[in-house]
């Protein structure tokens, strides 16, 4: 079997645009899902009582429904219901955020609940208010404890962007499929795609791990 990797070098800008879209979608959906997940967790932990069942329903349903289904629904069904047109990229960003925010929320909640109650008691004994305790004592420690789980979530986010190919977002996977179909060289093209995903993810997961090892003691009470 002969391999001809000129198909890659000849179409670098085509594949490069896919890589750029993948990175952009990863960074945007990673950021929005973290922010949204943070607020969802705050609602679940400290929100009004009536809101909690709704938050739990949201989290449970997002954990039960495949991300592919969420993306397809967001792209094909949501525009009809909401009466708006939406680009594939926008639909992917919304779908991924809604899906991943549920996981982010559970990470935040677990992080907050893992901070020992004695820390809050010590802060109460100093005369601090509940809000001050959350902001200045519990959350900083919880954030450190959440780092490894956030690292995993970030890698899942980058990988999940490949699913956006089914709603025609021109990201790396979609561009690879197109190129593989036209060139009849799926081995070279998809191997390249695999390599690129690996090269994007590896530094992220390793970087988070190394950073966590340096700051872990700040969350250890």
């Amino acid at each position, binding site marked *: 079997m002969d391999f001809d990797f000129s198909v890659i070098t000849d179409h670098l800008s085509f594949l490069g645009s896919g890589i750029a879209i993948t990175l952009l979608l990863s960074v945007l959906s990673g950021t929005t899902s973290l922010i949204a997940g943070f607020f969802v967790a705050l609602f679940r932990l400290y929100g009004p009582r009536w809101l909690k069942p709704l938050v739990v329903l949201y989290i449970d349903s997002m954990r039960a429904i495949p991300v592919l289904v969420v993306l397809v629904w967001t792209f094909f069904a949501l525009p009809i219901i909401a009466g708006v047109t939406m680009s594939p990229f926008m639909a992917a960003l919304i779908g991924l955020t809604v899906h991943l925010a549920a996981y982010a929320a559970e990470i935040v909640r677990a992080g907050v609940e893992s901070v020992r109650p004695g*820390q809050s008691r010590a802060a109460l*004994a100093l005369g601090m208010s509940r809000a001050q305790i959350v902001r200045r004592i519990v959350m900083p420690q919880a954030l450190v404890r959440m780092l490894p789980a956030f690292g995993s979530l970030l890698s899942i986010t980058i990988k999940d962007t490949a699913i956006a190919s089914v709603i025609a977002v021109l990201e790396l996977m979609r561009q690879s499929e197109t190129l593989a179909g036209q060139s009849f060289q799926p081995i070279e093209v998809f191997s390249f795609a695999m390599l690129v995903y690996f090269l994007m993810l590896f530094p992220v997961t390793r970087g988070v791990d190394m950073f966590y090892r340096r700051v872990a003691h700040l*969350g*250890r009470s």
Partner: protein
Amino acid sequence: MNKSATQSGRTKAGGITIIRYRGVVKRYGDFQALSGIDLDVHAGEVVCLIGPSGSGKSTLLRCTNGLESIEGGDIEFEGTALPRDERELRAVRTRMGMVFQSFELFPHLTALANVAEGPRTVLRKHAAEANRRASAMLAKVGLADKAPNYPSALSGGQQQRVAIARALAMEPDVMLFDEPTSALDPETIGEVLNVMKQLADEGMTMVVVTHEMTFARRVGDWIAVFDAGRIVEQGPPEQIFDAPTTERTRDFLSHLGWTG
């Protein structure tokens, strides 16, 4: 039973009453943790609460600054009943320092920032003023050189001294110690007890839950012996340790191997 606070042998009973417990009852579900506690703490006194584990000593301490609510009786602090309102309770807590068995230093803050946290966040001092006060308190407990260290880089005894400095930085009227040396290695217990002794010598009012009988005997002005949620005997250390009037006190002390 000698439940009422007889004042004989109480050298500092002339001072104003800082904390007054009357008939304090605390329940956890069906379990009665405190069944009618009567006790006075006067200004400048070191009152030691001793007794077996689970007898209610730590519970009483937590009720004192409102970390736990009480189901019956009264706790007065400086002549006023403990408020129920959270905001008013916070104001009271700023005047009571508390030290925990497990230190509970904030791991994400340096020793200096731990001590400065209360003045900064609660008393709303400027950073410079809070840090100046924190430095002074760290120096007081002999840890000026550890100011930039995080708790993870400190020994247990050092962490507990920082915790004492953190409480002192609020300039409290009374210090509550909840088994401050129980989680420490034997070789670091002494450094913490020395700091507490120094505080007592300076006239700080202190309520100390402890299993350190030598400390209670030497530093305590008044000893309350707890058993099953009651004070079975209270009196000056000479009475409790040399001539206990109740069987329960004798039992407890002999179990600890106390020989006077």
